[in-house]
């Protein structure tokens, strides 16, 4: 096999890649800083929006409020973030004003359709607002809260007048109770996000190395230099394959580390993380080896696929466009299959890439699908072997190595077919 030759070329490829800015950024920096950046942006954005919305005064127009309920108008007027506006126009002009941002809500009181025992001038109320505008939406919430408070007080008065005892009333409540622990909720959210992001990161981290290892050689005119060294084409292809897979796996693992550090930081602010989980992420420690194995399998598969596509490119630009369909094909199925209601069946365990995403999802929520896991391992091992064989075969072809590379993989296969037919 000549492991020494593979090792020498592999080290050389990695050394060159670590000095290439685009590769370092895509394969190392992005996976590391993505989570902290996203979290920071999310928190900063949310607090900015909340702060902005909180500061704004809601402009509220009231129409048709019965005199008997003047207290409601008083309570609205007393709210320091609500400004009552007289509205002389008709309903349509009020709605237009809301749409244009001149008014936030239009509260219309109408007589109740059925009479109510103890309530004088009972009414039904409609709050007109625009969900397309945050300020209007916030105003609706404020008015609704004030209404709810007034309604409670009104019903309380009526209850007292009717002589209904307090205990009877107090027991008539609806209580919501969640059986999921905070850790379980955290896991279920991570199970949606982590598999997809892992796929994207592994693919992204392999992307530039795959182009660099093939089209990059052609663009730099170093292909022929490398082909004249004392190593077989198989050894050259293997070294390049391992180099791309290394960066893919590195990207995936760094991504997981960044996730742990970022969520761990938030968790430490909220409370101490549990000992048997990954730095407060809710991911069970026992799941880590499986996730690590999943990342390795993904990296091995993706590296082979990307090399097989990129080897036909004459330069970086062509390489990018040739790999892109494969890149999208890798993570697109996982995008649709991440719903927790989709079961990890044996059939899905046979589908490469999707099976790893599903397996990662399952171990994050704490289940151990042994049979599906075994099938996944087997299916991925076979897929990786097939992809590596195909990539090696493609890379070793004379017409691919020294050919113009026009047309990509499909044209190459068509050319091979027509040549075989001619020979026959």
């Amino acid at each position, binding site marked *: 096999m000549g492991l020494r030759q593979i090792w020498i070329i592999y080290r050389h490829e990695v050394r060159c890649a670590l000095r290439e800015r685009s590769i370092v950024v895509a394969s190392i920096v992005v996976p590391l800083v993505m989570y902290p950046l996203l979290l920071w942006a999310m928190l900063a954005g949310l607090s900015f929006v909340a702060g902005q919305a909180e500061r704004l005064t809601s402009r509220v127009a009231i129409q048709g409020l019965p005199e008997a309920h003047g207290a409601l108008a008083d309570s609205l007027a007393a709210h320091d973030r609500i400004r009552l506006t007289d509205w002389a126009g008709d309903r349509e002009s009020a709605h237009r004003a809301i749409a244009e941002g001149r008014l936030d809500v239009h509260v219309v009181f109408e007589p109740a359709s059925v009479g109510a025992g103890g309530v004088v001038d009972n009414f039904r109320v409609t709050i007109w607002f625009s969900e397309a505008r945050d300020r209007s939406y916030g105003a609706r919430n404020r008015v609704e809260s004030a209404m709810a408070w007034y309604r409670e007080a009104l019903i309380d008065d009526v209850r007292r007048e009717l002589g209904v005892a307090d205990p009877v009333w107090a027991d008539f409540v609806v209580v919501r109770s969640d059986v999921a622990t905070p850790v379980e909720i955290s896991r279920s959210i991570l199970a949606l996000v982590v598999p997809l992001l892992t796929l994207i990161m592994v693919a992204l981290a392999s992307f530039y190395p795959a182009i660099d290892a093939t089209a990059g050689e052609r663009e730099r005119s170093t292909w022929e230099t490398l082909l004249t060294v*004392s190593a077989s084409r198989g050894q050259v292809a293997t070294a390049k394959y391992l180099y791309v897979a290394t960066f893919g796996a590195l990207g995936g693992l760094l991504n997981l580390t960044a996730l742990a550090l970022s969520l761990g930081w938030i968790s430490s602010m909220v409370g101490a993380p549990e000992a048997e989980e990954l730095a407060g992420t809710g991911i069970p420690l026992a799941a880590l080896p499986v996730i690590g194995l999943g990342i390795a399998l993904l990296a091995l598969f993706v590296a082979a696929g990307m090399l097989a596509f990129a080897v036909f490119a004459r330069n970086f630009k062509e390489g990018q466009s040739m790999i892109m369909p494969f890149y999208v094909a890798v993570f697109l199925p996982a995008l649709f299959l991440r719903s927790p209601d989709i079961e990890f069946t044996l059939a899905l365990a046979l589908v490469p890439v999707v099976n790893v995403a599903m397996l990662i999802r399952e171990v994050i929520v704490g289940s151990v699908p042994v049979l599906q896991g075994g099938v996944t391992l087997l299916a991925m091992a076979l897929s990786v072997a097939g992809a590596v064989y195909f990539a090696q075969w493609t890379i070793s072809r004379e017409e691919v190595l020294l050919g113009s590379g026009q047309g990509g993989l499909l044209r190459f296969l068509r050319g091979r077919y027509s040549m075989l037919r001619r020979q026959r």
Partner: protein
Amino acid sequence: MSDQPVRAEGLTKFFYDESRGEIRAVDGVDLGCSRGEILGLLGANGAGKTTTLRMLCTVLEPTAGQAWVMGHEVRAEPERVREKLGFYSASTALYPKITPRETLRFFARINRYPGARVEARVDDLIQRFGLADYADSRVEKLSTGMKQKVSIARTVVHDPPVLIFDEPTVGLDVLNAIELRDIIAGLRDHGKAILFSTHIMSEAEQLCDRIAIIHHGRILATGTLDELRDETGLHYLEQIFVHYAQTAPVAMADASRGGGRLAGGPE
């Protein structure tokens, strides 16, 4: 069996192109090169020089015929062949992100130069080629002349007995071209068997001990400049070349139809 370090018999290469069909780039080439000799492969663009040399250094696989480098057959033992030769051409560039020292180390190790002697060999070449001041700067920062020196140093770093130079002076200015030719002559004096392809007549006249004229993929004549002069009765190599090219059998041109350059493939 001949003891020549490089030998080819009936070396042939066909390419297949979807639109043009079969292209005969090299057709039955016989040649040999001895130790301490520069064999010039002289031909016009598209004559088959690069394809012949690429077959000898195992980058391309011959369609027919055989060739040996230091006794190793190019198809049977390609890695052993590559271990015994150094290949240099205008299209064999260097890795821009590593330094000349790292470049030489890499090519010495991958070409199986004894590990214990790699550092001494690298230091020696850095001194000999005047690279000391730039040995630890990245290749991308070097001038064209310095890059060329690093390129030659990497070609010879594993001390191969056979060297192949494929149009090495293409794109070089006069001074760099002269320096390169001096280096190649020096390597010949150290006993290397050198194959040197060019389409520049003066270069072949000055540098080559023997000249093989190649046209439409076939060797038309081989000999020293004096032998070629005697055979044709002409004095200048340019005249000699034109003489052979014009008297070549018409069938040859027909056979190598479409013999123009195939992008990235045959010369």
